[in-house]
C-alpha cells in the first residue's frame, strides 16, 4: 500500500473539494433562496416551511445524489480524495464551535450532560451485550455494535474493532446499521422536534443523546435551527455530543474487558490497559475544542453575545458565519459517503439488534428530555 503523506495527496483532493465548495455555494446563494420564495400549493416558502429543508439537509442530499445517482454508486477516483476531507472539515467546525461556550456555561450545561450521557452509554452497552447474546451473535460483532450504538457511531465501531478481534465484515455491518438508522433519524428528527414544539435546548439535548453519529447529530441540529449562536440547537447538541465522544476510550476499555473475560483461555489474551487505550483512542480534536472554549472564556475574540449581555464582536460574528460554511462543506462530503448498496449490507440479526436498541435509545432520550425539561440549563 502506498501510504503517502497528507500534503502529497492534497493536490489530488482539489477536484473533489472544488465540487463540494461549488455545490454549497449554489445551494446557499441560489437554491435555498429560491426555495424560500417559491410558491408551492399556493403558499410562499412551502418547501422550507413544510419540508424544513435548509442548506444542511440539501448539502447532504446533494452528496448522496452525487454518489448514488450521478456516479452510479461509487465516487470517481478523481473526486474521491476531495470527499475524504469532509471529516477534517466537520472536526474543524466542531473545534471552532468552542467559540459558542464559556467554561462557566460548560460546567452548568455539562454536568447535566455528563450525568445523562453517562447513563445512556452504560445502559446501551448493557442492553446490546445482553440482547446480542440472546440473539446468538458473534462476540466480536456484539462488542463492535455495543460501542457503535452507545457512544459515537463510526468512530467507536472502528476504535473497538482491534480490541475485540472484529473482522472487516463485523465493522461493516455495524457501520451500515448505525448509518442507516442515523440517516433516518437525521431527516425525521427536525420534523418531530417542530411538531412537538421543542425548544432549541430540549431538541439539542435529545438529539445529542439519541442520535448515534457525530456528523448526523450536527446535521440534525442545524436542520432544526441553522442559527449558530449560544443557546441554539447546535450549541446544545454538540456539547452533549462532545461528552459522548470523550467517553470513547472508557467504553472501548469496558467492552474489551467484557470480550476477553468471556473468551476461552486457549484463545490467549492480549488485553490492553486503560492507560494504553486512553492514550491510543482519546479524540485529540476535543483538546482543540476545549482550547477554543478557554480562549473564548478569556475574551480573546471579544464579546460572545450571550443572552442579556453585549452583542457579539465582529470576530465572533465572522467566526460563526465561517463555521456554517465549513459545516456545509463537510456535510456535502458526508453525504458523498452514504452508499445505498452498503446500507443494504446490514441485514438479519445485527440489523434487528441495531434497530431495537437504536429506537429504544432515541425514544427514551426524548422521554427523558421531556421529564427533565425544567432542569435543563440554558446557555
Amino acid at each position, binding site marked *: 500500500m502506498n501510504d503517502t503523506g497528507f500534503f502529497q495527496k492534497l493536490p489530488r483532493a482539489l477536484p473533489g473539494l472544488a465540487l463540494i465548495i461549488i455545490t454549497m455555494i449554489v445551494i446557499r446563494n441560489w437554491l435555498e433562496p429560491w426555495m424560500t420564495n417559491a410558491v408551492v400549493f399556493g403558499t410562499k416558502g412551502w418547501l422550507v416551511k413544510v419540508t424544513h429543508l435548509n442548506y444542511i439537509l440539501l448539502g447532504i442530499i446533494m452528496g448522496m445524489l452525487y454518489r448514488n445517482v450521478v456516479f452510479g454508486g461509487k465516487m470517481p477516483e478523481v473526486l474521491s480524495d476531495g470527499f475524504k476531507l469532509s471529516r*477534517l472539515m466537520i472536526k474543524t467546525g466542531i473545534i471552532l464551535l468552542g467559540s459558542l461556550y464559556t467554561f462557566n456555561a460548560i460546567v452548568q450545561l455539562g454536568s447535566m450532560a455528563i450525568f445523562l450521557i453517562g447513563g445512556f452509554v452504560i445502559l446501551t452497552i448493557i442492553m446490546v451485550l445482553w440482547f446480542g447474546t440472546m440473539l446468538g451473535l458473534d462476540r466480536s460483532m456484539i462488542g463492535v455494535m455495543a460501542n457503535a450504538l452507545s457512544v459515537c457511531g463510526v468512530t467507536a465501531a472502528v476504535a473497538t*474493532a482491534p480490541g475485540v478481534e472484529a473482522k*472487516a465484515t463485523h*465493522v*461493516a455491518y455495524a457501520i451500515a446499521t448505525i448509518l442507516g438508522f442515523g440517516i433516518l433519524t437525521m431527516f425525521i428528527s427536525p420534523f418531530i422536534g417542530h411538531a412537538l414544539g421543542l425548544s432549541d435546548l430540549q431538541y439539542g439535548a435529545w438529539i445529542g443523546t439519541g442520535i448515534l453519529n457525530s456528523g448526523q447529530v450536527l446535521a440534525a441540529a442545524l436542520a432544526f435551527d441553522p442559527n449558530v449562536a449560544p443557546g441554539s440547537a447546535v450549541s446544545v447538541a454538540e456539547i452533549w455530543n462532545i461528552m459522548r465522544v470523550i467517553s470513547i476510550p472508557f467504553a472501548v476499555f469496558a467492552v474489551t474487558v467484557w470480550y476477553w473475560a468471556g473468551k476461552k483461555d486457549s484463545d490467549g489474551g492480549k488485553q490492553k490497559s486503560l492507560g494504553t487505550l486512553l492514550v491510543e483512542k482519546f479524540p485529540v480534536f476535543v483538546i*482543540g475544542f476545549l482550547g477554543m472554549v478557554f480562549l473564548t472564556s478569556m475574551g480573546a475574540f471579544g464579546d460572545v453575545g450571550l443572552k442579556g449581555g453585549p452583542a457579539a464582536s465582529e470576530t465572533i460574528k465572522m467566526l460563526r458565519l465561517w463555521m456554517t460554511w465549513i459545516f456545509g462543506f463537510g456535510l456535502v462530503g458526508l453525504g458523498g459517503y452514504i452508499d445505498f448498496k452498503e446500507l443494504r449490507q446490514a441485514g438479519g440479526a445485527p440489523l434487528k439488534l441495531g434497530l431495537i436498541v437504536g429506537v429504544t435509545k432515541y425514544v427514551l432520550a426524548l422521554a427523558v428530555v421531556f421529564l427533565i425539561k425544567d432542569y435543563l440549563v440554558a446557555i
Partner: protein
Amino acid sequence: MAKTGSETIGAPGDKSKMTLFKDDRAEDIGAIIMSVLVIATIMVLTMKPASQPSAPVTPAATTAASAVAPAVAAETVKK
C-alpha cells in the same frame, strides 16, 4: 490484527479510508491546525486599523519615531 485507523465500510485499505490522513489522530491534529489558520485569518480580517493621530501629518512624521511624538506631547499637556 492490523491497526484500523479510519476505514470506512469494507477493506482497511488506503483507498477505502474516509480521510486523507494516516489515521484519526493525524486528522484530529490537522483539524486543530486548520482551526488555528481559520482563527488567524478571521482575526486579521476583523482587526481594526490602528488609530491615526488627530494632528495633520507633517512630512517629517513619516518615520515611526516621529509618528509617536504627537501622542507623547498630548500626554504631557494633559498632565
